[in-house]
């Protein structure tokens, strides 16, 4: 198939769009948006073609690429691989990116850096598409860092204000902590396996060619990168602040794609994690903890986007949990469905803030009647997130719960159930506060209006996916997606890997390779998941929809817990005290040292040099110039005296000549005699 052989076109198109927008910025003007959107839509079409082509050949991976460079005995290969995971990710990324591009044409209309916004969006899309296609860690890391850069640029899009500027810095710095770990991990694996190729490293790890400690350390260091990028505890702090960026950016980068790259990394390296059961266990623990932790914070946030941000952190933890308990299909499936409905939710948040000019949910209310399209699309997204069948989120969440149940770790399972309950609760709270009840800010309410078609169009398209997106993985479709993603086929050597599992999840991994059939084996999971979701909605409705539960009284009764949650567990304060303030103090100390010692030395040297230059100049003026001028004036005086001898009269010259000759002769004769 042509497209599978030339898959490089898919990331190249948005890259070309970025170049065109960057170089013809002025000439293009607002048409830059059309360039970017056209490129991404073409990539979407090609992704669909690639997906169909891959399904047609039965999911057999296609690798393209070749030698990149040779440095002595070291050779580096660069290649792209389209396998089942990459094909699915291509679809997800290009769909969400297309929707966001179209939506942004309306949302960012009239922005002062409109072209730059679309240029960076294109570059980001290109990097994300490249990331999912990379067949080696080096290329993956390049794409990974380009995404980090785009994230930084787009969070700080409105850098005239303090908040976005500082948030962009925080996001960049925090993810950097994880990236350093990831870099070390990649080099560790490279030095031990002798290659960057993911499949080859996986094979080496699974086949026992790498020492178990190397595998575990490599996997954990890679996971460090994923923790930073996917905002897992303890590096989750940047994602909520990243909401300072434009809302389409939050939808694309900070909900659907870039933050999911960490999950993708774990999924792509799953064979390495499986080979080290301990690493997998850490993934499950961090994921499960983050899921519950962030969900509790989300229940008390009052900013529309921040609720969604903490929800994203929580859901990413959910995916990590799914992967960690061996649910490879469950984790990636949830990544796909989450991308659709969370992008949708963010875009509706943008639509609401576009209409009201605020994101404070306590100033909203009663918008259901005024913004019909936004309301219905939001409701679909919220229900999908809450896990109500048959919407997308239900199926994938159920898969994760099944995998957690099957792993035998009861604590993790109940953490996941509690998270599901809290998710349903805070989404109900959000829905009720924003769209129902009486408007709390009449001025804003009067001005509210439905967003233009260019914004509601992508909402409707994403709603369709949020509703139907889970069906390919549902039992109704015979777990088609599960079979397609089937771990064993995408990563050769799994059979060997399962034999090498020395950790605690042998059972879970076994489940993963039979993920499709797992649903039948876990009877009580479905009712528990559904019960948790419905209970969450019910409690949420009781607290916020009716006056049956007095919020003030609950807050007063649980004041310590309320304060703890309201302040996000004081993690930011802790980091500020432990890392930021010592760093600033150290910087100030260094600054002082610089000012006093270094600057003193430099200024002293400068002063001495200046003084020396002055005295050297004086010497020049007096002695050297004096000598030169003396010679000159001596010469002039001599010339003036001697010119008299030059009469120009030939005969006088001749007299002098012969007189001289005669005198010389006389002296000679006198000397000789």
């Amino acid at each position: 198939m042509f497209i599978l052989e030339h898959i490089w076109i898919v990331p190249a198109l948005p890259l070309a769009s970025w170049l065109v927008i960057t170089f013809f910025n002025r000439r293009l003007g607002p048409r830059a948006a059309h360039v970017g959107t056209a490129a991404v839509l073409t990539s979407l079409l090609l992704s669909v073609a690639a997906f169909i082509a891959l399904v047609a050949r039965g999911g057999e991976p296609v690798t393209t690429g070749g030698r990149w460079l040779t440095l002595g005995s070291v050779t580096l290969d660069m290649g792209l691989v389209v396998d089942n995971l990459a094909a699915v990710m291509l679809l997800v990324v290009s769909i969400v990116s297309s929707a966001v591009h179209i939506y942004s044409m309306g949302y960012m209309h009239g922005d002062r850096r409109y072209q730059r916004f679309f240029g960076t969006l294109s570059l980001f899309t290109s990097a994300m598409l490249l990331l999912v296609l990379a067949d080696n860690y080096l290329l993956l890391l390049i794409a990974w860092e380009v995404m980090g850069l785009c994230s930084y640029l787009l969070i700080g899009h409105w850098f005239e204000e303090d908040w976005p500027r500082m948030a962009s810095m925080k996001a960049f710095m925090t993810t950097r902590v994880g990236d350093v770990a990831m870099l070390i991990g990649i080099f560790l694996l490279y030095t031990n396996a002798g290659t960057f190729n993911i499949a080859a490293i996986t094979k080496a790890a699974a086949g026992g060619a790498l020492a178990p400690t190397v595998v575990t350390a490599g996997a954990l260091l890679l996971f460090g990168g994923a923790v930073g990028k996917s905002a897992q505890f303890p590096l989750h702090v940047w994602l909520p602040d990243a909401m300072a960026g434009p809302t389409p950016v939050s939808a694309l980068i900070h909900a659907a794609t870039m933050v999911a790259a960490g999950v993708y990394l774990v999924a792509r390296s799953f064979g390495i994690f499986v080979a080290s059961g301990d690493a997998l266990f850490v993934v499950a623990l961090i994921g499960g903890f983050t899921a519950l932790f962030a969900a509790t914070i989300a229940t008390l946030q009052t900013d529309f986007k921040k609720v969604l941000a903490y929800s994203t952190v929580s859901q990413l933890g959910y995916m990590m949990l799914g992967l960690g308990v061996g649910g490879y299909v469950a984790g990636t499936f949830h990544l796909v469905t989450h991308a659709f409905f969370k992008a949708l939710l963010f875009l509706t948040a943008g639509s609401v803030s576009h209409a009201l000019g605020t994101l404070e949910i306590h100033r909203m209310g009663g918008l259901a009647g005024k913004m019909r399209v936004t309301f219905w699309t939001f409701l679909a997204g919220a229900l999908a997130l809450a896990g109500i069948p048959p919407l997308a989120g239900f199926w994938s969440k159920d898969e994760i719960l099944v995998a957690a149940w099957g792993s035998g770790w009861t604590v993790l399972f109940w953490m996941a159930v509690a998270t599901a309950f809290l998710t349903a609760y805070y989404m109900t709270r959000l829905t009720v506060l924003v769209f129902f009840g009486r408007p709390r800010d009449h001025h804003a309410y009067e001005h509210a209006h439905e967003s233009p078609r260019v914004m509601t169009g992508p909402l409707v398209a994403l709603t369709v996916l949020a509703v139907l997106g889970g069906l390919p993985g549902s039992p109704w479709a015979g777990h088609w997606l599960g079979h397609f993603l089937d771990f064993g086929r995408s990563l050769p050597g799994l059979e060997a890997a399962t034999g090498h599992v020395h950790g605690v999840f042998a059972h879970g991994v076994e489940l993963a390779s039979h993920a499709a059939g797992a649903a039948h084996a876990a009877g009580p999971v479905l009712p528990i998941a559904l019960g948790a979701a419905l209970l969450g909605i019910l409690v949420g409705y009781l607290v916020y929809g009716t006056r049956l539960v007095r919020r003030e009284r609950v807050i007063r009764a649980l004041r310590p817990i309320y304060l703890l949650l309201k302040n996000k567990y004081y993690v930011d304060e802790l980091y500020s005290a432990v890392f930021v303030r010592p760093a600033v103090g150290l910087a100030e100390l260094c600054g002082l040292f610089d000012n006093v010692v270094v600057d003193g030395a430099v200024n002293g040297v400068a002063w001495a040099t200046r003084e020396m230059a002055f005295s050297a100049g004086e010497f020049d003026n007096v002695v050297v110039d004096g000598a030169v001028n003396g010679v000159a004036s001596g010469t002039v005086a001599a010339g003036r005296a001697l010119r008299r001898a030059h009469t120009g009269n030939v005969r006088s010259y001749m007299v002098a000549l012969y007189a001289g000759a005669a005198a010389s002769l006389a002296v000679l004769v006198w000397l000789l005699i």
Partner: protein
Amino acid sequence: MIDLSYAIVLGVLLFAVGLYGALRSSNAVRVLMCIELMLNAVNILLVAFARLNPAGAVAGQVFAIFVMAVAAAEAAVGLAIVLQIVRQRGVAEIDKFTLLKG
């Protein structure tokens, strides 16, 4: 056999006549002619002294021939310069020609 002293007296007298003429006359052509006289006086002395050379060497005679050749060249250049001066100034008086006065 003529005594060497005759030749020396002739040479010195000729040289004195040439020197006197060269210093006294103001006509450029006459100055040139006097210079030729002096050169020829030197030539006589060269040839005369050459006879004193024991091995019959011809260095003195050869040197005289060289002097003649140089004198011919000198006369040609000198006359050419004088011709130019006459053409430009209309006079051949070297006292009136003091371009190189410092």
